[in-house]
């Protein structure tokens, strides 16, 4: 039977047609849609369509206590939740003038870098899968699971940890945790040559990823590109180094850059960042035992916590780029306004639309994944 009341219509002949990518499409990262106008294989215009993941976070946060919102914020970016908690906590601490104990700061760096590794492994996998290379994505996601195991040992949750609260962290590390981290790092480092063989030196992948979605440094700055995508155009800027927070000033790490600004350069920057994260984590493992003190500053009764009136802009480097929280308090027990600036709000919408223009249909998914666009950050 013909189950759909579709009626064929004749159209004047045209070489142009419109194609919907998403929201139900494997070439889309998450629940997001992209409309393309094509001429043959060439994209004439692209239009992003968001809002499928809209939950009204900013409205929800205005209706909950300052401390309750900690449970809400990691949901804003699912693959990389830790920076969300940390940035929100930093914003609240800034409003209250709370001093975070040093040990808690080191613990936060530990989680942030673990989360960055997990997110980058996930992105590798996704990027490779858009070009038909599923083995890398299977490996990457399985290796990411080891990081999730570490998070489970530390916080009790695999994906959402709710471990950082304003004033510090909820608990200290469990015994033997740092050795476990160290072993996982050794294993992941030993896996990097495998990834190189399979993906980063694979001639077919290089052919596919070179010159795809390329931008120059001037264009990147003009369109508000941040994070690894900006570093792939040659600008060595990292919020961790240039607008330091927590204890990043005491840590040694490089800011890797590439010059080309295409999908290939972005993948290589992520790969280099993995190594830098390993380096940071090793320093944390070395230094953490020598730093004593509490992991949490004393905070008032969280159920009746009136945060002093004021406003602040807290900013960190998440795995996807610059993440910022603008928090306003009117002296009440709930936030007056919280505005989340996710890095993907630029990458997934305007930059993607702009890069898709003139690209090939084959490369649209690859451009989206190489930008590491995370739709929930756009929709919030």
């Amino acid at each position, binding site marked *: 039977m013909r189950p759909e009341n579709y009626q064929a219509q004749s159209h004047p002949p045209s070489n142009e047609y*419109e194609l919907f990518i998403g929201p139900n499409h494997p070439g889309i990262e998450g*629940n997001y849609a992209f409309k393309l106008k094509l001429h043959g294989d060439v994209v004439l215009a692209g239009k992003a369509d968001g809002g499928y993941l809209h939950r009204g976070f900013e409205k929800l946060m205005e209706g909950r206590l300052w401390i309750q919102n900690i449970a809400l914020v990691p949901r804003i970016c699912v693959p990389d939740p830790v920076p969300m908690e940390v940035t929100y906590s930093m914003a609240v601490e800034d409003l209250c003038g709370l001093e975070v104990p040093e040990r808690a700061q080191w613990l936060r760096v530990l989680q942030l870098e673990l989360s960055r590794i997990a997110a980058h492994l996930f992105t590798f996998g996704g990027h490779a899968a858009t070009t038909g290379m599923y083995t890398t994505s299977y490996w990457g996601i399985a290796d990411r699971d080891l990081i999730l195991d570490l998070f489970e040992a530390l916080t009790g949750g695999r994906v959402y940890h709710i471990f950082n609260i304003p004033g510090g962290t909820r608990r200290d590390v469990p015994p033997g945790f740092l050795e476990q981290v160290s072993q996982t790092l050794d294993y992941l480092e030993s896996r990097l040559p495998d990834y190189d063989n399979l993906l980063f030196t694979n001639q077919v992948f290089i052919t596919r990823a070179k010159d795809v979605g390329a931008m120059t440094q001037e264009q990147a700055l003009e369109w508000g590109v941040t994070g690894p995508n900006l570093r792939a155009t040659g600008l060595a800027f990292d919020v961790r180094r240039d607008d330091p927070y927590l204890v990043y000033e005491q840590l040694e790490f490089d800011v890797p850059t590439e010059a080309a600004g295409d999908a290939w350069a972005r993948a290589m920057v992520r790969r280099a960042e993995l190594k830098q994260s390993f380096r940071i984590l090793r320093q944390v493992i070395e230094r953490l035992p020598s730093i004593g003190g509490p992991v949490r500053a004393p905070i008032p009764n969280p159920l009746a916590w009136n945060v002093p009136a004021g406003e602040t802009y807290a900013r960190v480097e998440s795995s996807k780029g610059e993440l910022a929280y603008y928090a306003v308090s009117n002296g009440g027990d709930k936030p007056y306004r919280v505005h989340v600036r996710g890095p993907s709000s630029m990458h997934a919408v305007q930059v993607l639309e702009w890069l898709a223009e003139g690209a090939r249909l084959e490369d649209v998914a690859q451009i989206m994944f190489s930008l590491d666009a995370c739709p929930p950050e756009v929709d919030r």
Partner: protein
Amino acid sequence: MSDLSKIPIHTEKHAPEEARTNPLAGVFDELVRFAQSRSMYMLHYCTGCGAIELPPAMTSRFDMERLGIQPMVTPRQADILLVTGYVSVKTLKRIILTYEQMPSPKYVIGICSCTVNGGMYWQSYATAKKLSEYLPVDLYIAGCMPRPEAVIEGMRALMANIQSGETEPWKDYYQRYDYYLGNQQHLFGDNWQTPTDVIGQAQHYGLAGPETEGEHTRILQQYQQPLVAHKLRLK
């Protein structure tokens, strides 16, 4: 907490539909149900944050393919619709469109607490709260978010149900279409329509019941316009 062991367990026996005379027919039905339970293609649609636990469940660590579960790309090829997490109203429309395009027998699993009752977004203006109002749901897997083990366990429960022939809510969608359509219209407005002719399908496959048509389907017919090809609009 009261003693959990005191909770009585209910087991209900299902009356066999009608005795088939041909002994081979039973064997054949068994085989088909076995095949349907052991080969479940799930739709590759991440509707919410619970989708982040599906890649681990599918890939090397937990490997759903051991159980014959594979991701599939388009609704036409899929058997299971996994609603992974909260459904915003905008997504819900697409979920219903997708669900109606899937060939039956089809199954819906609601993953995460948000599909049960709105979860932690209970006061959000943008998310629908009870998934089973809009679609017949076979199984809920609660948790925020359920671990891959829980997802696989839920899949196994669904498999057992399919094999024993217990779970057939997809028939419910045809039989009580008016109820589901009414809830959809309440949320999306009276001019809500999908390209799939559900009533026609129900009649064609002999699944139409007394509640297939009603006041809401009359509203649908009143607003229904023939679908026309999409116009080029972009720039």
